[in-house]
């Protein structure tokens, strides 16, 4: 039935064409715009679940490829790993759209915002479904282009400055990735994500070149995955409106980098060959430095969103760390953390957005006693914060648990130390916020900027509740086959890495 | 014997050229340039290519001289011009280039044949006796057509720079002295006669469209210099039509060959067509060159000339 054949393209075009149409909508037609947005999002979620059903039950891999005539062809392929990232990005896109509609009530240039917003999700879907490194690169660059207007959406001087630094980093990363991809293509010819063994067959004399290419690829992807030297743009880009920083810096842009690193390690080089080349050791070291560095910087940040930004820097490196350890559990941990970190971080950003939008509170210190005024947001914040720290019933604990197991049987014990230290540091910068929320008396009376029946407009309230709930469920029902952990196990099994 | 003559011409050419570049005074440079043009046409005659000699004398020395003198007229003071600086840094590379080229000339193959014989044996079926005109109009007709185009574009360019629709504006006042009028009465008919003669000659002897056009053009320039009112009579639409007549006639002839699906630019059998093209080309070259000389001065050239004489 050719619908199945065209499903991936349908997924892409659903948000691409809604984006284009929204561009041309007049500023005042908010109702039509929201309707278009939501239908696009819902369609995508349904399509993802339908595809998940076909993939997991009927084991039917969707593959579409167009030949670009340049010696490689443009492949869209949905396998387990891409399905995971697809599910993450489409669900969270639906939630964030709802949140964004509420958040941007009455602010200027919303058509432009939502146009670029849906284009950005198209880029994420494209990254997830890329069948080979070249299509991945094409969507990677497309993502850079499309996120710039979102970062500078406020059009203030600071936003433009942030946009400029964001651009410098991402364009640099893009160029590096371009060089790496071309060089790989020159040496190994067009390379699908499927045939992982191809690089090994190249013979020993190419190993040094492959090491250099690996380094270039990781630096290119590291920019977006916010590895230490290249993370500068993330805290600066916090100046963007909350839904942007929520979806982009928790889910889309940062995950694209991490997802790319996972693809490069597992599908391009193959984990064992990468280990044989001695590349994974330094990568693990870099990741752990980022984890510790990110958490330390987060401690000293007084602005809530900046603090969350630095915590993202450190959390994303968990994925890189997990991928860099040659052990089945740590691979599962890395992949599952891809999803858990996304859910928890987006809740934190939603709550930060709520505090800023309704009560105008940005600084951590003036969050004292907000729990009384906005109980539900505070509860979701606490749930997500505990998840980040790794408190047992929540999703964060599951992935940290697997990462720990993996590092144990992977023979590199020091990673356990890193994990424990970072959990302590997480606690060190999250607990004071929770303590301020609940147990301290409010210093001054708050003036509500956005009056509404509930504590904040319902559109701002529902998304955090939904995502906090998913985080809780993902932790509790981890053993369920459809849960993120179950999917992660299936992926690892598919890669022949799991037992 | 011939060698000495060649040596004299060669050395004098080089000497005059060097003087032109090195002399401080612009006026002297231009006068020397006119002598350079005449010397060059002398060289052409020595190298047995008379029609180029005519063209060079009339254009290189004549029209170019008039244009340069006219342009020089606008310069306020041509007295004490600074000698161009940085002599050495510029002279050495040019010298090096000259040496390099001179070295390569030694390798010109001795048995150089060129396309001469080929032209002479393909000449009969072009109905033209004189090889140069045959090459110009028939073998390399496309070049001549484009060259008419270049002339036309130059006039368009001059009009564009002058932001003027026509050349009407730059009529000169009639000179006071009787000599100006007398010379017109005497020379102009002669010039037209010689132009026609050259044109007619073109089919079988050195001469042809360019030389005739250039002679007629110099006649026209003389008319303009003498402030003769007849140039103003020409209605500007007619002036446009005449100017593009050569180019258009060639275009129609060339594209007509497409209708009989021959190759582009093949001339029809009758000789009359080629001569027709030649006559149209002469007319349009004359008009174009006159417009080039006339259109370049500013609109109020008339009173400028008057101001200069009494200043």
């Amino acid at each position, binding site marked *: 039935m050719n619908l199945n054949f065209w499903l991936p393209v349908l997924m892409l075009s659903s948000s691409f064409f809604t984006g284009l149409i929204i561009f041309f909508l007049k500023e005042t037609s908010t109702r039509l715009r929201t309707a278009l947005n939501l239908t696009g999002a819902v369609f995508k979620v349904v399509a993802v679940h339908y595809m998940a059903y076909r993939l997991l039950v009927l084991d039917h891999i969707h593959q579409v490829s167009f030949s670009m005539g340049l010696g490689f062809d443009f492949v869209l392929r949905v396998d387990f790993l891409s399905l995971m990232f697809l599910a993450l990005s489409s669900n969270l896109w639906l939630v964030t759209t709802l949140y964004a509609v509420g958040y941007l009530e009455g602010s200027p240039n919303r058509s432009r915002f939502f146009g670029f917003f849906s284009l950005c999700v198209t880029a994420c879907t494209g990254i997830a479904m890329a069948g080979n490194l070249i299509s991945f690169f094409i969507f990677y660059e497309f993502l850079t282009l499309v996120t710039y207007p979102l970062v500078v959406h406020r059009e203030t001087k600071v936003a433009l400055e942030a946009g400029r630094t964001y651009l410098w980093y991402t364009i640099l990363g893009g160029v590096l990735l371009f*060089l790496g991809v071309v060089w790989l293509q020159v040496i190994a010819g067009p390379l699908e994500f499927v045939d992982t063994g191809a690089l090994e067959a190249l013979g020993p004399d190419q190993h040094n070149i492959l090491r250099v290419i690996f380094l270039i690829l990781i630096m290119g992807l590291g920019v977006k995955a916010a590895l230490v030297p290249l993370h500068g743009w993330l805290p600066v880009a916090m100046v963007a409106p909350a839904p942007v920083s929520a979806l982009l810096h928790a889910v889309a842009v940062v995950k694209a980098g991490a997802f790319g690193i996972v693809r490069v390690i597992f599908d391009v080089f193959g984990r064992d060959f990468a280990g044989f080349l001695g590349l994974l050791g330094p990568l693990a070291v870099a990741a752990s430095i980022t984890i510790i560095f990110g958490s330390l910087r987060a401690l000293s940040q007084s602005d809530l969103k900046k603090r969350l930004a630095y915590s993202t820097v450190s959390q994303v490196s968990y994925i890189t760390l997990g991928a860099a350890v040659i052990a089945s559990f740590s691979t599962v941990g890395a992949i599952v953390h891809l999803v858990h970190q996304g859910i928890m971080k987006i809740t934190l950003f939603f709550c930060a957005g709520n505090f800023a939008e309704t009560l105008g509170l940005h600084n951590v210190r003036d969050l004292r006693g907000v729990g009384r005024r906005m109980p539900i947001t505070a509860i979701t914040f606490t749930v997500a914060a505990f998840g980040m720290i790794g408190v047992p019933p929540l999703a964060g604990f599951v992935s940290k648990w697997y990462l720990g197991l993996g590092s144990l049987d992977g023979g590199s014990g020091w990673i356990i130390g890193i994990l424990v230290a970072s959990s302590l540091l997480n606690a060190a910068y999250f607990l004071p916020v929770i303590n301020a929320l609940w147990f301290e008396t409010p210093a001054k009376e708050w003036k509500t900027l956005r009056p509404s029946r509930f504590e904040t407009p319902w559109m701002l309230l529902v998304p955090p509740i939904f995502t906090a709930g998913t985080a809780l469920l993902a932790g509790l029902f981890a053993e369920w086959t459809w849960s993120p952990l179950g999917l992660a196990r299936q992926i690892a099994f598919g890669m022949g890495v799991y037992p | 014997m011939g060698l000495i003559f060649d040596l004299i011409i060669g050395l004098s050419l080089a000497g005059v050229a060097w003087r032109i570049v090195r002399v401080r005074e612009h006026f002297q440079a231009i006068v020397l340039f006119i002598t350079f043009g005449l010397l060059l046409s002398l060289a052409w005659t020595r190298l047995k290519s008379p029609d180029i000699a005519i063209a060079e004398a009339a254009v290189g020395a004549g029209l170019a001289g008039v244009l340069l003198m006219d342009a020089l007229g606008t310069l306020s003071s041509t007295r004490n011009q600074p000698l161009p600086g940085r002599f050495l840094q510029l002279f050495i590379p040019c010298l090096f280039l000259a040496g390099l080229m001179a070295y390569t000339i030694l*390798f010109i193959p001795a048995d150089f044949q060129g396309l001469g014989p080929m032209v002479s044996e393909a000449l009969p079926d072009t109905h033209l006796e004189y090889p140069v005109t045959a090459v110009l109009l*028939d073998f390399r007709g496309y070049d001549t057509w484009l060259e008419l185009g270049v002339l036309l574009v130059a006039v368009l360019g001059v009009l564009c720079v002058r932001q003027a629709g026509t050349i009407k504006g730059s009529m000169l006042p009639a000179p006071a002295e009787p000599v100006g009028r007398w010379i017109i009465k005497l020379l102009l008919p002669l010039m037209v006669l010689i132009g026609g003669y050259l044109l007619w000659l073109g089919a079988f002897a050195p001469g042809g469209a360019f030389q005739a056009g250039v002679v007629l053009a110099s006649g026209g320039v003389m008319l303009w210099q003498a402030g003769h009112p007849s140039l103003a009579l020409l209605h500007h639409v007619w002036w446009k039509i005449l100017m593009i007549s050569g180019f258009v006639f060639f275009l129609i002839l060339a594209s007509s060959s497409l209708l009989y699906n021959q190759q582009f630019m093949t001339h029809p059998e009758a000789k009359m067509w080629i001569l027709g093209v030649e006559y149209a080309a002469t007319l349009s070259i004359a008009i174009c060159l006159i417009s080039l000389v006339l259109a370049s001065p500013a609109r109020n050239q008339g009173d400028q000339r008057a101001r200069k004489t009494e200043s």
Partner: protein
Amino acid sequence: MPELLILVPFTGALLCFLFPGHIRDVIGLLCAVLTFVASIILTGNIYQNGPIRLNLGGWKEPLGIGMCVDGLSVLFIFLTGIVGLLVSLYSVSFFSKANNQSLAKHFWPLWLFLWGSLNSIFFVSDIFNAYVVMELISISAAALAALSGTNASLIAALRYFLLAMAGSMAFLLGVGFLYAQTGTLDMYLLGAVTDGGPLMAMALGLMTVGLIMKTALFPFHFWLPPAHGEAPAPVSAVLSALVIKGSFYLLLRIWCTVFQDTTASPQTATLLGLLGLTGVIWGSYQAIIQNRLKLIIAYSSVGQVGYLFLLFPLVFITLDPAWKIEAWTACVFQTISHGLAKAALFLAAGNLIHATGTENLKSMRNIADRLPMTTFTLALAGVSLMGLPPSGGFVAKWMLLQSILASGQWWLAAAPILGGLLTAAYIFRILSQAFVSDDQISCCGHVSFVMEKSALLLAIFSILIGFRSKEVIFLLSEQVYFVIQGGIIP
């Protein structure tokens, strides 16, 4: 029929010269459409049944002038067709504005003459004929550059014209040297002569220098920014997108047919590559520090032209034929996508300057919401210039980098990498200006529908060309006359 591509623009030019008033616009547009259709038909014709060889006047090679239309020339014709049509569309409404009314009667004849001569340069196969056509292009381009009549544009036009004249003289002397060595004027007969003596090397040097001056390669690029910056928008679009490509095409044609294996070609090829590299970096660097919008775009032309010259070291120094087709496609794609994107950029810049009334980049306030279409065009054209994926520029950079890495001359790789970065810098400098918000909205001149849409169409074409690389490779490998050392077909 290739002759139509020359006859139609010339007849149009003459009619525009004769008729006054609005008839001129109608004739101009009609000729533009006809020429565009003819170029599309020709491209299809060449694509199906191979190159065409014409002998003008019915005379065989050495005597008469030949015309040859093959894969390479047809791609350039295609580029000229598209840009020509859309620029003509743009200039119909550009010259109907109040202040430009008087310029129209000079613009149309010169522009159509330029178009006709550009088309005929792409058919050329006789070197003296090439000299005459180059001269025709130089005079019409210089006249168009001097169209706006300000001091700066006049001086820039004259500087360009003098340089072009010097280049033509050098080219003519090169023709003399070639004629001295071989006795024929036709390129393909010249190609057959194998003993590349010092005469041929000297001719190679002279002709290359002559043509480099006109293509504004690095040491001779100083005339381009003022000339293209000062001219009115449609003129600078044409100058940047097409005129420099004409002399580049001639250089390519001469190198491939006549100077394939002359003694000096490998060293000169490396020199050209080096100059191209410095051109890319210098041009892009200059573009970043400029303040006037049109100067930025003009300097970016200097930069992008540098990419074209990277072809010479890749193709003319012994390289296994497998990667040669990559280098060729890279160069052709760079030409086409740069032509389209640069024309779009200049037209969009024209719209911006018309709307905001200022040339200075800093004083252009929130263009995004007042002129959304123009900002979108700027973005699309910028994407293609930077070489970000799906665009034509991306394909060019991709293939260029591949052939550079495969050919082992890794120092050339700096061009696509560094050049790409620098291009991104100045493109985003323009784009970020679009997002700067400004409360006192200065009066915004009305930019007509046609002007915006033609710029947008050009930008979209430069993106779409990226997808059609199969046909271009086919045109370049099978439908081409000349054979580079070791054959061009991998």
